[in-house]
């Protein structure tokens, strides 16, 4: 039906270029495909992508200072924080004017909360000042500066002014600095005092424990997947149900069950004491620490390791092992040199799944983690729901996301994502 013209372009029967013809023919198909996924796309966009984008935006957003104290911020622009002095009378006047408006709109407490993240005491300072600034007379000659210092002597120190000036831009990297245990100092970013450093340690712990969980899942899951793949279909289905059984129980129930099992007066300790393996006064501490979290999460995430492994192992024909043995390999060599390398894609897929799931896990570490077994996600949840420092929560979340993407990238470089198989 096609014809070669002199220019070398292929034409369809009606003389239009074949490429155009083909594109036209495929367009309908594409439109239909798009229409089919459109509801899901919209749903995901509205309920998932947009909130996440908004959340991530909060990690750098800092409009509140300049919006609540516009005059103060511009008056403070010339002030040199290095001087060690408080700013001049005009700045205090601007602050009073701003605060009067803010107090009426009741936005001063929010600003106080925001600045309190950076300077402890700012919250109460603003609440107190907002209440009293209403009575302040800006027309008279009396020093507004003195009036502020009378409200709270903190106004007479440069610290609060330095904080306001530092956080006056509309965007800030302060949350991110905070999330990696740093803060804005006079000379740029600097480390926080030792006793305030917590997040890097938490990130490290999260990564370490996720690795431990992934490792234990590989060790426990591999033999199970192997048996599943090599059993006759009927017994394999039976075993598969057992593997999937945990999915049918609530996550909370499973985690609480571990609490019952592992606590000091729990089943395992009782049995150990009964067997005489540990003394009654030396019961093992297996819960509210890293050990408990690793045990419980390994149990919960194990199916995510077994399933991809199983689907890869199913495709490895038993003749490979026979071939290896006929070539003179012992059972172990045949397994290690022939079977295992072919099952690596399954391990890879399972590991990615388990690792990424566990790095952001929240409920289980919250319940059984105690102080030493909590994850970064628990801290994020704390900032979202208790301290209400959403900016910091967003920064921590963004870093977590970046770490996962980075690890994924590294994995792709080292192992190759093509080597990951979730099925057939």
């Amino acid at each position, binding site marked *: 039906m096609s014809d070669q013209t002199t220019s070398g372009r292929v034409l369809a029967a009606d003389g239009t270029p074949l490429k155009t013809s083909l594109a036209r023919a495929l367009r309908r198909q594409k439109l239909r495909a798009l229409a089919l996924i459109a509801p899901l796309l919209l749903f995901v966009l509205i309920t998932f992508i947009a909130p996440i984008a908004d959340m991530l935006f909060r990690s750098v957003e800092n409009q509140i200072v300049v919006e609540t104290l516009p005059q103060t911020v511009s008056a403070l622009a010339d002030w040199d924080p290095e001087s060690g002095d408080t700013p001049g009378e005009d700045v205090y006047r601007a602050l009073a004017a701003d605060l009067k408006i803010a107090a009426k709109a009741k936005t001063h407490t929010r600003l106080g909360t925001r600045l309190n993240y950076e300077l402890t005491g700012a919250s109460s300072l603003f609440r107190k000042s907002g209440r009293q600034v209403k009575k302040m007379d800006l027309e008279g000659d009396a020093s507004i500066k003195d009036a502020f210092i009378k409200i709270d002597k903190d106004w007479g120190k440069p610290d609060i002014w330095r904080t306001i000036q530092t956080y006056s831009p509309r965007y800030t990297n302060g949350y991110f600095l905070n999330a990696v245990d740093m803060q804005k100092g006079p000379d740029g970013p600097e480390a926080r005092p030792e006793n305030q450093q917590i997040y890097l340690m938490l990130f490290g712990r999260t990564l370490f424990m996720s690795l431990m969980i992934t490792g234990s899942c590989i060790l426990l899951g591999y033999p199970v997947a192997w048996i599943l793949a090599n059993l006759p279909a009927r017994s394999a289905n039976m075993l598969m149900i057992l593997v999937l059984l945990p999915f049918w129980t609530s996550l909370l129930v499973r985690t609480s069950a571990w609490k019952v099992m592992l606590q000091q007066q729990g089943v395992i300790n009782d049995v150990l004491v009964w067997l005489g393996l540990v003394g009654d006064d030396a019961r093992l501490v297996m819960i509210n620490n890293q050990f408990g979290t690793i045990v419980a999460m390994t149990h919960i995430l194990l199916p995510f390791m077994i399933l991809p492994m199983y689907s890869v192992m199913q495709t490895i024909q038993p*003749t490979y092992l*026979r*071939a*290896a043995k*006929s*070539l003179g*390999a012992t059972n172990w060599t*045949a397994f290690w*040199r022939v079977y295992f390398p*072919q099952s690596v894609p399954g391990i890879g897929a399972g590991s990615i799944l388990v690792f990424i799931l566990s790095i952001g896990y929240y409920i289980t570490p919250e319940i059984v983690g105690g102080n030493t077994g909590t994850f970064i996600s628990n801290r994020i949840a704390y900032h979202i729901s208790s301290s209400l420092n959403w900016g910091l929560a967003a920064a921590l979340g963004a870093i977590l996301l970046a770490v996962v993407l980075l690890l994924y990238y590294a994995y792709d470089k080292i192992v190759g994502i093509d080597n990951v198989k979730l099925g057939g």
Partner: protein
Amino acid sequence: MADTQSPGAFVEFERVQKSYDGENLVVKDLNLIMPKGEFLTMLGPSGSGKTTCLMMLAGFETATHGDIRLDGVSINNIPPHKRGIGMVFQNYALFPHMTVAENLSFPLEVRKIGKSEREQKVKRVLDMVQMGEFGGRRPAQLSGGQQQRIALARALVFEAELVLMDEPLGALDKQLREHMQFEIKRIADNLGITVVYVTHDQTEALTMSDRVAVFDDGRIQQLAPPDKLYEAPENSFVAQFIGENNTLEGVVKEIKGDTALVRLDDGELIDCKPVNVTQPGERTRVSIRPERVEYNKSRLHADAHTLKAEVLEFIYMGDIFRTRLRVAGNEDFIIKTRNAPDQVRLQPGTQIEIGWLPEDCRALDA
């Protein structure tokens, strides 16, 4: 058990039986003696137990009863990896995560052979199967025929004296298959190895083998060189299974020396060679090869027996003519004639007389 060893035997099955489920015997009383250097083919329909026999020899299945000996030593209790038997699998079973060269050096590595010697042997065997340039490729990057060669090379590289092949050419197209048949035979002859070859393709069996064991129902029905198998089948299964065959059914009337008089079911009497009929009154199937039937009177033996036949169909096949006849009530009686200048093309509807030599007409079991 060396005392019961037959002289010259390399591979020996003695009264071997195999059952998978404890109810049915898949292999029933297998006895087989192979001398060194023989190319023996196990031929039979699917499910006749060929693979099972091969797997017992390789050590992947254990015989339920009986003894398998290799070079006089009973191997029933030797694990597969110590038997030193090369094996080519139907789907090749080349290790997909290794290159061709790694696949080939695998059996040498597990035998702790040094690197330089390994490389040398791999190169030699690659050249032997004419795949010298492909050492660095992955199996998936090779065509079916090339994978087949590598699988063969891998079974040969560690110098096994016995090589087993389970339908190794099953996945290849016809032309490649014929080429590889020749190739495998050549290599096996050059190396002087003993080969047990499994196939369900009779042409393959006939062209390659020194001897063919025809399997059916877990038994060897006949074990003979290809020509004997074709020309002198010992029972009606073999006659039917190997090549094209015409059968006429009847009852033995009398047996005199090496001729049997058979009354066909439509009443005609013919002379046959008695093969496994022993006394008058027995039912028999008479087997005649299509190319041994003659209808040209001038070429018929004077004392040849003739039967009336009606031509039903004439098929022109190029080198030969294939004519379907109705003979003694059998409407599927085929004759094959060479396409020669003086050959008559029989028209459907023609009444002719056909005949054959009594020794080409074998009276077999019913």
